[in-house]
């Protein structure tokens, strides 16, 4: 079922947002963790480009936004609501499957998008440059968030309960952080880690916002150059998104195994 009614989706999403706000731990994970890395900008390079700390802070904030309000929040909601038979009950109403999923993902997506948006003036206020290619930056954010939402749906399919999600979320978390962790690794290893979604997203933010070439910590690209430099990581990110969406569609479960 692919049709999407905005009013129905908004009605369900409003209730889901209420649930996120009402649960203090979920709210902390969803809001504080993505925003906290931006505070590193206060201690960073103040835009002089000497060590790339500003880029690292922004990349980390975006990765946390993809991992916590989007991936982990959606994963735990899907598993919990499925176990409580809430999802099955919702499917007996007028809402389509797509609306139910979209409404669960929307609160986290809004928080993550807000983080990506707030990061721009906040970073500029602290001396960082404006994004060199805002369109590429926006595209990177949107594809990354969709990818991690799809990862949540797929992971939920083989996650037995909310406790198990702490373990089953690990492969996706590893795929997300490996790109950043592997920056100091030898080139032979980097060839493989560059193919992870985390590495692709890191490269795309560095290219689109700062105009950094590979491993650079100062601007070496112009606007046109950002598009060509973004080719491979964008392809990697889109490929991961396509695989994740395919897996999510194939494996979606609406009620616990009997």
């Amino acid at each position, binding site marked *: 079922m692919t*049709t999407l009614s905005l009013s129905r989706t908004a009605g369900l999403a409003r209730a889901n947002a*209420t649930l996120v706000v009402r649960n203090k731990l979920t709210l902390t994970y969803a809001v504080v963790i993505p925003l906290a890395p931006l505070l590193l900008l206060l201690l960073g390079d103040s835009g002089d480009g000497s060590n790339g700390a500003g880029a690292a802070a922004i990349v980390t904030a975006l990765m946390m936004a993809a991992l916590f309000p989007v991936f982990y929040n959606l994963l735990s909601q899907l598993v919990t609501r499925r176990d*409580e038979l809430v999802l099955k*009950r919702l499917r007996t109403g007028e809402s389509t499957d797509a609306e139910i999923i979209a409404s669960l993902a929307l609160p986290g997506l809004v928080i993550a998008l807000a983080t990506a948006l707030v990061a721009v003036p906040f970073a500029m206020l602290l001396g960082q440059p404006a994004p060199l290619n805002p369109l590429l930056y926006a595209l990177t954010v949107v594809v990354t968030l969709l990818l991690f939402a799809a990862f949540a749906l797929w992971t939920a399919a083989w996650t037995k309960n909310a406790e198990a999600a702490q373990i089953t979320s690990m492969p996706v978390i590893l795929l997300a952080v490996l790109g950043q962790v592997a920056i100091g690794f030898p080139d032979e290893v980097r060839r493989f880690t560059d193919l992870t979604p985390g590495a692709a997203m890191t490269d795309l933010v560095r290219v689109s916002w700062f105009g950094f070439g590979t491993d650079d910590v100062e601007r070496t690209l112009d606007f046109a150059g950002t598009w060509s430099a973004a080719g491979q990581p964008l392809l990697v990110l889109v490929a991961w998104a396509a695989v994740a969406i395919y897996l999510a569609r194939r494996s979606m479960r609406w009620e616990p195994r009997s």
Partner: protein
Amino acid sequence: MTTSAPPDLHIEVRGLRRSYGTGTTAFEAVRGVDLVVEPGTVVALLGTNGAGKTSALEVVEGLAPPTAGEVRVLGLDPVADRAEVRRRTGVLLQTSGFPADLTVGETLRMWSATMTAPRPVEDALAELDLTDRVDVSVRSLSGGELRRLDLACTLLGEPEVVLLDEPTTGLDPESRRRVWDLVARLRDRGCSVLLTTHHLEEAETLADRVAIMHAGRIVREGTPAQLGADHPSTIRFEGAAPAGLPDLAGLTAVRRVAADHGRTTIESDDLQATLTALLAAAADGGVRLAGLEARSATLESVFLAIASGAHTDDRALEGADR
């Protein structure tokens, strides 16, 4: 979506089969069910646990496709025409849940926001006697209140067809009576109701027609009175047949005589005629029949006969009244 004149039948099930698993683990839960629900009537699908009631109902609800056979709700396919069918149908699952941190009012407003033409939430709260619980969180509700909230969601869109899977299971007697009153009001409004239950009294009280399921098939169907009429009445007394009585099997309209657990049971196709003959014979022989009791056939006796395995023989199933 199929467009056609208003259907004569609100629910029509033909040759429905539903299987789980594949290969050696395959299990056929529904084995060729035919069932119809006419507008403005209540049909009860009665059966023991595991009879296939919920498996059949889930197909009617559009939650699962049939393995074979055809299901129409309001003349539409509940899977292919899901949007139209859901708009006009209310579904109550056997067990379901709502987010525990929402209040009763928030839950109903959330549900209302997903509907094309909901009635006011306040009306639904009042009908299900939940008005004073509107600000209470779902996690704090009793089992009966939770079931009433579930029913309120089911009826929020003023459905033409209502599908209730064991609506009173787990409810106390007072709550059960309230649900029965509600179902009666739905019928009075012109709704069609298909409900599953294993409470015989519920089926006898509510249903215009009863279909008894056993081992994936409907083995009896009719009005409660018709089902009873098909089944023998019983006369029982304590001990074996006393000397002085004629051969009991030779009495008028006797179908069978059995002695078990220290009691004699006479099954009769005409209770009044057999009882009159028995009492006359007892009077003639000067015999006193201790613990004498006579009962017309009830849904219970029909159901128990089926549940005890009287209809597990496939030939009996094929010959049974569908």
